[in-house]
């Protein structure tokens, strides 16, 4: 999750799940807030990476 800094998405942590929002198009991603390290963590990281890539052109960097 710390790798999100500078990716152009906003992260909210006030739920028991994390909400990542694209400030450009208002799209968002919800992922489990706490996952054990290892495979489960990699699977969540993958969902975040895909979301960030999809919104790379409509986020703050545009």
């Amino acid at each position, binding site marked *: 999750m710390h*790798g999100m800094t500078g990716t152009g998405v906003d992260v909210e942590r006030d*739920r*028991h*799940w994390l*909400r990542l929002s694209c400030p450009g*198009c*208002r*799209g*968002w*991603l*919800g*992922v*489990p*807030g706490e*996952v054990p390290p290892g495979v*489960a963590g*990699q*699977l*969540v*990281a*993958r*969902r975040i*990476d*895909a*979301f*960030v*890539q*999809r919104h*790379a052109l409509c986020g703050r960097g545009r």
Partner: protein
Amino acid sequence: MMLRQFRLYASGPLDDERADLLFDRARDLSVEVVPAEGVAWVAFDRVAPTLVDAVVSGVRDLDTAGVGIAGVAGDDPLVTLEVIATRAGRPVEVVRGWAAAGIPADGAPAPAVGGGFPAPVRDHPRRPVFHWPDVAAWLDRHRAAVPSGADAEVTLEAVTLALRLRALAPRLERMPPIRSLLY
């Protein structure tokens, strides 16, 4: 038991309240909403004996959260090196090497054009993401074939048809004759 990855598209609003309910019920899913395109889906990373078991249990999750289902789809085509490694049955270090060197899995020199490992969707120094259909085709060409997705497509289509029938059922005069056609 194997990891089963698929998506269920929502037919109606998928808001924070419904997401709360989904995450209360399961921690092996993610929710993605694209307001500009009017689409939303729930992606699953579910361990189950078969794909159909996983998809049906996912349908139950959305039913419980009050999320209507528009359709069933395969997994997100954007994948990380870790996902590629799992699907190829190789250590992630090996896959990272393929991606870095752009050489075929069998070690042969890459042809001048089109022979290297597919480029990431967009350059990223730490977390590159790749387009799975391109990677699967590359793996297939270089002796590291992954299982065909043909069976998965049949399963996803069957569940989609069952959901369409379920949606029509309240408007049918009688359901049992329709159900009898299945056997």
